[in-house]
């Protein structure tokens, strides 16, 4: 068992708290290029994710990677989350997982 590389649940607003560290988030894809994807985080912020996304890309995609700055992530792992996803539910989870219940996750 190993918990040395945990990824923090973040939304757009929480990303700045984990710059330089491994994070995970779900974005709604707005634009997709060869080397990066632009998307809307679960709390409505515009984020840029660098890396090679899978093709085809569904509307929602989870990315796990390292936060480069407060609105960009360098992705290591991409997972298509489909076209119907409850973003507000996930957003609430991010807030809880970074609040007083952080010890269950990180």
């Amino acid at each position, binding site marked *: *068992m*190993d*918990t*040395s*590389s*945990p*990824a923090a*649940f973040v939304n757009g607003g929480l990303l700045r708290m984990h710059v330089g560290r491994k994070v*995970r988030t779900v974005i709604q894809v707005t634009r997709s290029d060869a080397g990066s994807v632009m998307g809307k985080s679960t709390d409505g912020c515009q984020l840029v994710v660098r890396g090679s996304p899978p093709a085809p890309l569904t509307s*929602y995609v*989870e990315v*796990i990677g390292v936060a480069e700055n407060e609105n960009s992530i360098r992705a290591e*792992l991409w*997972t298509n*989350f*489909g076209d119907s*996803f*409850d973003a507000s*539910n*996930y957003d*609430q*989870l991010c807030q*809880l*997982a970074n609040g007083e*219940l952080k*010890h*269950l*996750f*990180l």
Partner: protein
Amino acid sequence: MQANEFDGNAAFAGGGFMPSQATQTAPDRPSYSSKNSDARCLTPVTVKQLKDLSKVGESGISIDGVDVNNIVLVGVISKIDNAVSDCTFRVDDGTGWVECTKWIHEHVDSVEVDVISVGMYVRVYGQFKSIQSRRPITDFNEIAHHFLECIYVHLYNTKLRPRMTNATDGMTAQPQVANSNSGNHIMGFSHQTNSTNQFSNQYNTDEEQIRGISSMVLQYLRRPACLASEMGVSSDIVARELNVSVDKVRKTLDFLASEGLVYTTTDDHYKFTDA
């Protein structure tokens, strides 16, 4: 999920998620599943929770004071080792990874195993030492849901379970996150107690006095007789009933009206808003 009415225990009780209440006797609690052994309950966990467990090094496994034998994990398969009699795979749920072993006894077991591939999200059921079954996830809302369940069960076990055994507490045993039904504006106001001794004469400033009186005034206005009266209650009567100066009562009522908690019906008559 509605903030006020969500009954978490009823929602989670079916799958045997909540630990049994065989030891508690409060009569007005919602009923749980009929299992009477904690060890038969299924607890959602994160890998981090499992790791913290084994650090302590107990032989009987328990999380947050509840005995845990069967667990649920949700995560990504990051490695698979397929041998003849068993399949070992690594599940990573973002908080860490754990090795899981699935024993292959029959053909049906190996078919299950063939479906699983690296990079796929799965939900795993099993015991802390060995894994019994897992299935791939297609609706990814399950992932957020699993972690929310972990949070819920953790909070339930650490905050509400101990409280339930304390009969003198006086609080309702509903495991809700927010249970205020008149907004969150009242600072530190408890709906359950009726004592006016809470707000004693130690308040110095006007504002603190108003805060202190406002809950008394609200309680008064929420009495059935006051709620039933169409015209509401005049500030004079409130002042007289609560033994507080009319001036203070008027200031308090203005404050409450600006917060939306009371409204004026006719001149100087007030009613509680959430009737």
